[in-house]
């Protein structure tokens, strides 16, 4: 199936690349994997890249907002990148754009969570 998640530790941050169609079925399967990586990283920094995300619905928003809450609780930093116009519209509608920075490239998103 389309489930795809690839996660890396890069310069103190967890970089998660989400692939395929991000719906409720898939989100249930990948949430634990992300949370485990965050624990290993002691919630320092998280970058989510949507380059490979072909589809997303509000279950994906729930995943993002849930990770945002966790990171805030631990004073961690978080950013998003490589967001298609369709996804940007969802992010706008749900207020994600107001609370999280969105960058064009992974390197910009990684630089942003390392600052300060």
């Amino acid at each position, binding site marked *: 199936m389309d489930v795809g998640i690839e996660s890396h530790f890069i310069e103190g941050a967890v970089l998660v690349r989400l692939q395929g*169609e991000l*719906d*409720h079925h898939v989100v249930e399967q990948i949430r634990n994997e992300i949370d485990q990586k965050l624990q290993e990283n002691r919630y320092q920094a998280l970058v989510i890249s949507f380059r490979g995300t072909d*589809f997303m*619905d509000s*279950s994906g928003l729930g995943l993002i*907002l849930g990770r945002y809450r966790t990171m805030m609780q631990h004073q961690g930093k978080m950013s998003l990148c490589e967001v298609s116009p369709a996804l940007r519209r969802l992010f706008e509608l*749900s207020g994600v754009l107001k609370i999280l920075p969105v960058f064009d490239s992974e390197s910009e998103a990684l630089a942003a969570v390392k600052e300060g």
Partner: protein
Amino acid sequence: MDQSGQRMPQNYMQIQFPSLSENESFARVAVAAFAAQLDPTMEQLTELKTAVSEAVTNAIIHGYESGVGEVRISCAIVDGRIDITVEDEGVGIPDLEQARQPLYTSRPELERSGMGITIMESFVDELQIESRPGQGTRVVMRKQVAKPPVLHA
């Protein structure tokens, strides 16, 4: 036109499946494949898929909670418009006005965003929700995809 002055559908389809999360992707792809005959833009197709995904996910998570029941989708095409109905025979929605509030969710512990109904509303032209506690929920979405034909008087 039929007796009631409504125009008859030019094409239709129905699908039914158990409320398993594996079927969320099947449901939206099936509706998109049916809608393809209206020659939608990529944007319209994404809007339809997202709206269907929201309605089907709600039937699975909220309608049938942890149990399994049947989800039924019917689609009809009339004059370039697609009408999509998503139905469950689940627990129903006790307070529809509350349910329609952006960010309201009854299942925050599942990390639901509370944006499903808001997304449906903004991705289709018309959204109608009927629900009876204990009996189920019916979501009707209408979207004009292609230009309607010019009607002769």
